[in-house]
């Protein structure tokens, strides 16, 4: 699944909707029941509730239109684009527009209104398109869907519960899915888990990013509480379970590593020619992946950590330096164990190793403090 960039979601559970106008293809009560049924499938797997209003501004305004209809996203006549919707937010955000040049039906003889409404309402709640062909949020309309036994896919449930969590469990109301809660499979990591470790850590334009599995925490300078996002919300092309990441501030670029490949991103954009092989940096063929990396903006050198050794890359000459690898223990005494991630902040290097974090003073050449890895997440 994917969420919209920035992961917009409703900050309340009780939402309103209004059917602003109707298509001529169906009786009004058929439209009403299709929309209601579409809302119900999301209601059943979240804490969300939907109340209908008949005038004024609802959170989700539902309308039918053709061609240019006032939102710079004109429809295209019969076929192709069937409908569109906007992510959560004020005004037109959250709204759903159906292309009335389609033939809207209650069965599969035309374009099934319930099925398209369920997909579009997924957008209104904050889900973006999924790459899972079995998912409701897959972008292509599947006219062969078994409407009588329609169910959300696990991918859809994981996505919506990433945003809003599961429905409140109550013995009287077995809304809680019988099989293991989908959060187990796509569970976001808990920031205050004392055993928390990170896959990678990097700065990015003054922020700090902590990568874990499919997720990242984003630590903003002006905001104490870190934000949890899907990596794919910012960089859909990146894999999960990354190995390393670092920012070269002079290039306004973050380099992200997994296996024997690395990506260069500037903001949300992948730089041309990436991903590349890590061996283009000068690593010997025996190196299949790296554990961690950090770029020292003072001396314009980048340190790559692999096992108990490290390499140093000269950002000015853009080449790996001679005399490496060296043992980590020789030059960073006190930094024990495999290095998962490294962060340079306030003139110190912070080495993350499992749930421990070593603050290393490069001038004194010693570890000055040992913290829990998740101390930056303000538990």
């Amino acid at each position: 699944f994917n969420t919209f960039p920035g992961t917009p979601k409703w900050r309340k559970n009780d939402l309103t909707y209004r059917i602003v106008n109707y298509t001529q293809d169906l009786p009004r009560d058929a439209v009403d029941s299709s929309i209601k049924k579409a809302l119900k499938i999301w209601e059943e797997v979240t804490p969300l509730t939907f109340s209908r209003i008949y005038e004024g501004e609802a959170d989700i305004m539902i309308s039918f239109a053709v061609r240019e209809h006032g939102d710079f996203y004109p429809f295209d006549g019969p076929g192709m684009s069937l409908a569109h919707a906007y992510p959560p937010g004020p005004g037109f955000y959250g709204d759903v527009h159906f292309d009335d040049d389609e033939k809207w039906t209650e069965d599969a003889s035309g374009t099934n209104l319930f099925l398209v409404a369920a997909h579009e309402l997924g957008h209104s709640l904050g889900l973006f398109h999924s790459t899972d062909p079995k998912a409701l949020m897959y972008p292509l309309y599947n006219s062969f869907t078994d409407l009588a036994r329609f169910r959300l896919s696990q991918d859809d449930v994981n996505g919506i519960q990433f945003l809003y969590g599961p429905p409140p469990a109550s013995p009287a109301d077995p809304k809680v899915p019988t099989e293991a809660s989908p959060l187990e499979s796509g569970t976001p990591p808990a920031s205050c888990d004392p055993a928390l470790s990170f896959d990678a850590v990097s700065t990015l334009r003054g922020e700090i990013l902590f990568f874990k599995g499919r997720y990242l925490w984003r630590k903003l300078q002006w905001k104490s509480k870190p934000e949890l996002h899907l990596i794919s919300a910012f960089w859909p092309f990146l894999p999960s379970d990354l190995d390393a990441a670092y920012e070269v501030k002079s290039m306004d670029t973050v380099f992200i590593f997994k296996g024997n490949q690395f990506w260069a991103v500037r903001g949300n954009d992948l730089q041309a020619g990436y991903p590349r092989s890590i061996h283009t940096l000068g690593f010997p063929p025996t190196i299949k992946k790296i554990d961690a990396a950090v770029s020292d903006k003072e001396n314009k050198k980048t340190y790559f950590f692999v096992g108990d050794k490290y390499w140093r890359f000269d950002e000015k000459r853009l080449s790996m330096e001679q005399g490496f690898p060296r043992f980590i223990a020789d030059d960073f005494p006190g930094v024990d164990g495999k290095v998962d991630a490294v962060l340079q902040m306030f003139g110190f290097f912070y080495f993350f190793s499992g749930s421990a974090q070593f603050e290393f003073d490069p001038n004194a050449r010693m570890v000055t403090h040992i913290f829990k890895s998740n101390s930056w997440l303000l538990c």
Partner: protein
Amino acid sequence: YPLNGAAKGEDPNVDFAQQYLKNYYNLGKDEKQVYRRKDNDPVVKKIQEMQKFLGLEVTGKLDSNTLEVIRKSRCGLPDVGQ
């Protein structure tokens, strides 16, 4: 450039595919719109991105399977975020 096609006005499939990539995969205005079928061609890269997202074989070419899929009805929202 190959004379076939390019000189006599674009192949309609290429036009349709480029419009699809603009609508749903952020094929930029500034990116060369000439579909040169070379790996570093931005249109080829966008075709590959679209094929990967939709679960198609990533060929970078407008093969029949890809052309069939991009003519299917779909949601009007893009597949990659901006």
